[in-house]
């Protein structure tokens, strides 16, 4: 008899418009010591299952049918107190963002001991001892001092370790990990996943690992269940499901995953359910100013670029402390290429991008565009001329569009600002753009919140292309998107670069994506460029310690099926 069994579970959210079935007749079982992956794109209902098991469904959600059994005993529909008894004690949970899931105002010790005593009772001494052991176990060095620190004094990875320690407090039988590594850097992600693996093994805990990341699934889980729109589409041993997916959706999902190993020309557009929205880059190309991209001469020459941020403001100049975000960075970007910058959070990659975009003033060094130094431009005309040629696509499609502006105004703003056209022409141009990015011009009358993430990113692209720029900065353009959408957007970007001869600066933390997109890559660490190579060369034989470490830690996707993918020639 398995540890946790879910039979025919259905969870419904009655909304005022219609009844929304988040989880639709799902069966699932977890054995002790087993890590069971629950994969699917957002809205698939995977997190809802987690919540349902914990009995933490947000109002007005309810379990409409089905049973949840923990080592044989029915736990769905237990009353609040009984459920509280189980929570933390028999089942516990790990949330996505370690920063927000710890109470900022209590020390780690307080949070641990209160949980321990809530379930096991016992003296403070015992609780403290146990807390110390846990902290030690999850691999936090120097537990005694760390115990009395506050969450904000821990780095992301360490915080997630604390969260895990909290989850382990009372020796639960089942742990539900909901996107435990999504907010973390690649290197840290690997460590955390290893930790979870170990713990599952040594304590025979059953783990449900909820994620959207095929890489994580492939590396970590024993079994996997693929969900789509609340339904289970495929389930089985990980290697089998990943290797020979039978269901169409699983196939499309796997096909969309960027591979570190082989570089594709385009992501295959096997799309499931929804209809593929066409991106008419050819029409766009028709009246696009021709640019000669002689790849020999650089569009940008970045020399000794430096940026400092005020870290602690003091009354007097000398008790202020600065933190160097970008430290003496130099590189060229050749016309027509896709230049990648990879690095972990805090490596300064986005800062570089923003300085090139002219959003941050430059503290040191120069930026030269077409032989003209732009880093110290002050006169408005020159600046606007420069800005016309530079556009940017931001990471978060939710905050990069002004929620109070209609889409057509958003797209028209650059045109109007640069006085490229007047009156009716503007409208025509905007509709054109919206059609071309595949949203249809009627979309112009709506507000951003009426669109999905992918659609919003298309709006951003439309806005970026409105001034017919020559140079496009993409700052983590897909890191907030699901793989299938990511595939679409990446394809679009490739098209733009090819047909419109745009030059791209591509910022990302995701090595596989970089592999797919970039011609040359600069690896950044703590504000410095540590390595700069042709992409293939970098992946083949990294020159620096750091680069090879990054490559080592990135998820291996070797056993993912590769049918439908044609490598670049």
């Amino acid at each position, binding site marked *: 008899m398995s540890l946790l069994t879910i039979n025919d579970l259905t969870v419904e959210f009655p909304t005022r418009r219609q009844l929304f079935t988040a989880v639709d007749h799902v069966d699932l079982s977890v054995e002790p010591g087993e890590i069971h992956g629950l994969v699917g794109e957002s809205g698939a209902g995977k997190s809802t299952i987690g919540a349902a098991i914990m009995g933490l469904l947000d109002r007005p959600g309810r379990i409409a049918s089905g049973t949840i059994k923990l080592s044989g005993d029915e736990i769905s529909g237990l009353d609040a107190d009984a459920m509280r008894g189980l929570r933390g004690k028999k089942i516990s949970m790990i949330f996505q963002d370690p920063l927000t899931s710890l109470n900022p105002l209590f020390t780690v010790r307080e949070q641990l001991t209160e949980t321990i005593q809530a379930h096991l009772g016992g003296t403070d001494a015992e609780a403290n001892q146990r807390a110390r052991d846990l902290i030690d176990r999850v691999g936090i060095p120097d537990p005694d001092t760390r115990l009395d620190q506050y969450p904000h004094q821990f780095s992301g990875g360490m915080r997630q370790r604390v969260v895990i320690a909290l989850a382990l407090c009372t020796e639960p039988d089942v742990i539900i990990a909901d996107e435990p590594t999504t907010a973390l850097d690649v290197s840290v992600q690997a460590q955390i996943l290893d930790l979870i693996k170990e713990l599952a093994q040594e304590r025979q805990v059953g783990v449900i690992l909820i994620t959207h990341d095929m890489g994580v699934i492939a590396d970590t889980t024993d079994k996997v269940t693929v969900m789509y729109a609340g339904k289970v589409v495929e389930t089985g041993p990980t290697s089998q499901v990943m290797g020979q997916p039978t269901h169409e959706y699983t196939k499309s999902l796997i096909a969309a995953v960027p591979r570190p190993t082989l570089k594709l020309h385009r992501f295959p557009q096997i799309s499931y359910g929804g209809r593929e929205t066409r991106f008419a880059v050819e029409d766009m190309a028709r009246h696009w100013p021709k640019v000669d991209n002689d790849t020999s001469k650089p569009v940008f020459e970045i020399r000794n670029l430096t940026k400092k941020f005020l870290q602690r403001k003091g009354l007097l100049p000398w008790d202020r402390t600065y933190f160097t975000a970008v430290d003496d960075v130099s590189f060229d970007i050749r016309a027509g290429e896709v230049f990648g910058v990879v690095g972990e959070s805090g490596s300064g990659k986005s800062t570089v991008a923003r300085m090139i975009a002219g959003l941050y003033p430059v503290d040191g060094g120069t930026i030269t565009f077409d032989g003209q130094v732009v880093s110290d431009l002050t006169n408005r005309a020159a600046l606007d001329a420069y800005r016309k040629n530079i556009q940017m696509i931001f990471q978060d499609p939710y905050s990069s569009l002004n929620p109070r502006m209609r889409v057509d105004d958003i797209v028209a703003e650059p045109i109007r600002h640069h006085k490229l056209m007047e009156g009716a022409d503007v409208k025509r141009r905007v509709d054109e753009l919206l059609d071309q990015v595949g949203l249809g011009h*009627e979309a112009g009358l709506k507000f951003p919140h009426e669109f999905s993430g992918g659609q919003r990113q298309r709006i951003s692209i439309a806005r970026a292309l409105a*001034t017919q720029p020559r140079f496009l900065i993409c700052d983590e353009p897909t890191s907030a998107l699901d793989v299938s959408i990511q595939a679409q957007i990446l394809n679009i970007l490739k098209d733009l670069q090819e047909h419109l001869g745009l030059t791209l600066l591509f910022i990302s933390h995701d090595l596989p994506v970089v592999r797919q997109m970039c011609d040359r890559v600069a690896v950044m660490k703590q504000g410095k460029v540590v390595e700069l190579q042709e992409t293939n060369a970098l992946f083949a034989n990294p020159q620096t310690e750091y680069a090879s470490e990054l490559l080592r830690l990135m998820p291996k996707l070797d056993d993912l099926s590769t049918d439908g993918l044609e490598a670049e020639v």
Partner: protein
Amino acid sequence: MTDTIETPSAPTKSRFSKFWDGDFAWSFRHSPVAIIASLVVLVLVLSAVFAPLIAPYNPFDPASLNLMNGFTPPGTPNAFTQDTFLLGTDDQGRDVFSTILYGMRISLFVGVSAVLLAMIIGIVLGLVAAYFGGWIETLIMRVADVQLTFPAILVAMLIFGIAKGVTPPEYRNEMAIYVLIIAIALSDWVQFARVVRGAALVEKNKEYVQAARLIGRGSFPIMFRHILPNVLSPVLVIATISLALAIIAEATLSFLGVGAPPTQPSLGTLIRIGQGFLFSGEWWILFFPACTLLALALSVNLLGDWLRDALNPKLR
């Protein structure tokens, strides 16, 4: 997060129908409190606006008053003149009902314009402080502190004094109302500034602002075109609540003797006059204006309350 499927954009519905089944309108339609409150406000405001049409008398026209009508109880004929008045008359023989309508006019006018003024000052200063930061911010926020130091009454007296000093005597009566407005506004702008600043500090770092800067928009277009619309909802909430406060502040100021001229009493002035008759048995002179004020302020507050929850997406 995002849906998996890129659904084709549905044909856009009419603005109204969209608004009508938008969450905002929906939560309104499902909140009896909000509905009742807004009805009350509506009725009061309308009857104030159309006072000249509704009111049986014009209390602001001295020639029409007959002192002998003074202190007529509600609905009973006056001892000397045999006239009857729905809600009775005050010490000057003014029909209380008409006086309330006309008084509410002044109170609302004062309240609304004061809040608007405060809002404008607060928004501008708040945005500027948040967007530019540095010493400008410090300056503005310290001025706000000074502002808080002065009780509204003082500010009012100060302004009355100065206005008295600078305006030629013959304009003082006209002036009184506007002085009142300025006084209340000046003692009220701070909270707007604080809220706007707080919200703007958040918005300022959002990527759409970066995008706008990238396009090359100047500081003020960004502040007012981009940031302002996104910080308006908290402002709206405060605005409603401080509307109620402004009306009450006006009453309090009248109580302390710096208020609307007695010949053109506001709701507050009426209450001040009325409270003198609390023990003397002419309860109606205080009671009806007080009830009107209560009804007005209470329903405005309730609306503000409901707004606060309705405009908070997390509460849905």
